[in-house]
């Protein structure tokens, strides 16, 4: 199992990818033992891993399994995490 991470709209163009999959065991936090191993990590930690520790811009919105989440929402193996800019529908 892995975590699927998706990016949308202008953020996808900035990050340069629409989707990545990462095995939970391959997260740096676990490999480098900077953090005790747990079965989950937070959305903010997922961003840091995928975007080379760049700070998460304040206007960026987040979702876990297609529902709005926060930076400290916990992510489990098999979850889908999404990052996207402010919405402009209607």
């Amino acid at each position, binding site marked *: 199992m892995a975590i699927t991470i*998706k990016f*949308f*709209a*202008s953020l996808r*163009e900035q990050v340069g990818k629409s989707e990545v999959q990462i095995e939970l065991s391959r997260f740096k936090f676990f490999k480098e033992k900077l953090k005790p191993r747990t079965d989950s990590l937070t959305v903010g930690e997922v961003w840091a891993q995928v975007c080379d520790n760049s700070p998460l811009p304040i206007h960026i919105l987040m*979702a876990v399994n*297609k*529902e*709005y989440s926060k930076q400290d929402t916990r992510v489990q193996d098999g979850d889908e995490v*999404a990052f*996207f*800019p*402010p*919405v*402009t*529908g*209607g």
Partner: protein
Amino acid sequence: MKVEITSKIFNPWEELQTYEKTLIAQGKYGAVATFVGTMRDYNEGDIVQAMFLEHYPGMTEKYLQTLSETALQRWDIFETLIIHRIGEIKPGETIVLVATWAGHRVPAFEACRFLIDELKSRAPFWKQETLSNGVRWLDQ
């Protein structure tokens, strides 16, 4: 309750009539409130030639369904309808249709306004405009 995301051009008035005929009995409702959003050929002082609307498949539908359920619980209304375009859109084409059916005008108006306001502020859609000198996202 119906939520539809479509990449095809649609006529909001025909959709309204079709939905009303198939689902809501004549005489049951006394008020229908509608909002129709149409693409302009100008924005922020520029001429806009076309627009591309992106969404988050799965999340957008789920969000709009939850929103419709909330409206149905919060107001005394019978039915809700939301149709939203995605993909390439030209000026003059309908982007969104929101409609509510109720016994009286107040809940119909209020629920319709709630649906379009929440859709605009929280539903995962993103617009990219095509101008004469390139494209721009409106999400910056």
